[in-house]
């Protein structure tokens, strides 16, 4: 049985260690914060905040306290604010231990595409290119296949890249994969997912 969104987030939370500074992307990555348990994880928001708290209770929203997805959030008792140049200095300088991001496509050598579909979707890369270039470890969470069933783990990406050879680990609804010499190594399969099924749904080279 493939993992659902929350199970993927829960699995991703296992990647984080106590004391880590982490940046979570928009979408499923945001859910990872719900599963860190006892681990003390400090979340960085690239719009200028270290130590991101949960959503506010109704009535406590503050227009001046938002995350990188422009959602209202709250601060903690150890939150620090800073400007965007400093924020990305932190990111580019390798001070953030890990980023967990979504993907449109990932290639078997760790290329990531998640910012643009030429002629259709022109939103921009935001901070994703900086994150994949700068943070210590890049973890991708994505459905294994697109809604139409197409493979998202490819030999080569077809969409414009966010970064070249930047992904360390991929968590999909079917399993966990590491980018290694020669392709993607299967680290773990979701319950009842078989290697045969996986191979069928994956274009990238899978290595043991």
């Amino acid at each position, binding site marked *: 049985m493939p993992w659902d969104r929350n199970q993927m987030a829960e699995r991703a939370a296992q990647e984080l260690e106590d004391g880590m500074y982490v940046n979570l992307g928009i979408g499923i990555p945001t859910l990872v914060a719900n599963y860190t348990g006892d681990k003390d994880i400090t979340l960085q928001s690239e719009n200028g905040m270290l130590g991101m708290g949960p959503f506010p209770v109704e009535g406590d929203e503050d227009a001046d306290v938002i995350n990188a997805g*422009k*959602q*209202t959030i709250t601060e903690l008792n150890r939150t620090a604010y800073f400007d965007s140049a400093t924020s990305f200095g932190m990111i580019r300088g390798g001070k953030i231990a890990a980023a967990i991001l979504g993907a449109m496509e990932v290639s078997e050598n760790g290329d990531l595409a998640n910012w643009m579909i030429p002629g259709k979707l022109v939103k921009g*890369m*935001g*901070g994703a*290119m900086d994150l994949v*270039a700068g943070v210590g470890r890049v973890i991708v969470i994505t459905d294994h296949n697109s809604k139409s069933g197409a493979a998202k783990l490819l030999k080569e990406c077809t969409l414009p890249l966010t970064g*070249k*050879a930047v992904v360390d680990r991929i968590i999909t609804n079917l399993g966990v994969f590491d980018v290694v010499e020669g392709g993607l190594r299967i680290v773990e399969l979701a319950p009842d997912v078989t290697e045969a099924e996986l191979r069928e749904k994956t274009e990238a080279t899978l290595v043991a």
Partner: protein
Amino acid sequence: MASKIYDSASAALDGLLTDGMTLAAGGFGLCGIPENLIAAIRDAGTKDLTVYSNNAGVDDFGLGVLLQTRQVKKMCSSYVGENDEFMRQYLAGELEIEFNPQGTLAERMRAGGCGIPGFYTKTGVGTQVAEGKEHKDFDGETYILERGIVADLAIVKAWKADETGNCIFRKTARNFNPPAAMCGKICVMEVEEIVPNGTLDGDHIHLPGIYVHRLIQGQHEKRIEQRTTRKKEA
């Protein structure tokens, strides 16, 4: 010292606006944007603007206002979602866009303001962003050259400023405002409150007054883009 304080956004921009100029704007999404100055530029009708700003606002607020009036020729931004008019103008070829990675844009602004015409970064290597840019290896890794930005005018928003323009920002409304302010040949600042000299602690100032040439106290809607809440715990 001749006062930096002006009565209105229009007065503060008087003599500073010319068609075809470059503009750097602070803000992230709709957070910490110079609402009053944007409205005054709309009213002034300045055309063919090239705007350096992380985002382009939404259809009817933020920089989106200047897109609706077709005052913008080119945007240099990292993310322009949340704006249908932008998308329409872009896909119709009526608007140029130069995408910059968010951190590259912020650093380009700071660099320009700090007299640094170029710096190297790993961000974007191997992507479209690197096309046409100088590549250089340092210690076995490849980087690309990015240029400092110096804008004709910076429009920014802070929380409070003293009479000399020393200012402080509030929480995540700081974002691009300090680097945008730094990179302007002239910087016009709008704040929620102008306070007398001596009110702000010198250790709390985020942007010293030297970066601020003109100052207004404005009215701020401070619109929330994505209102997200959780249930109150019992």
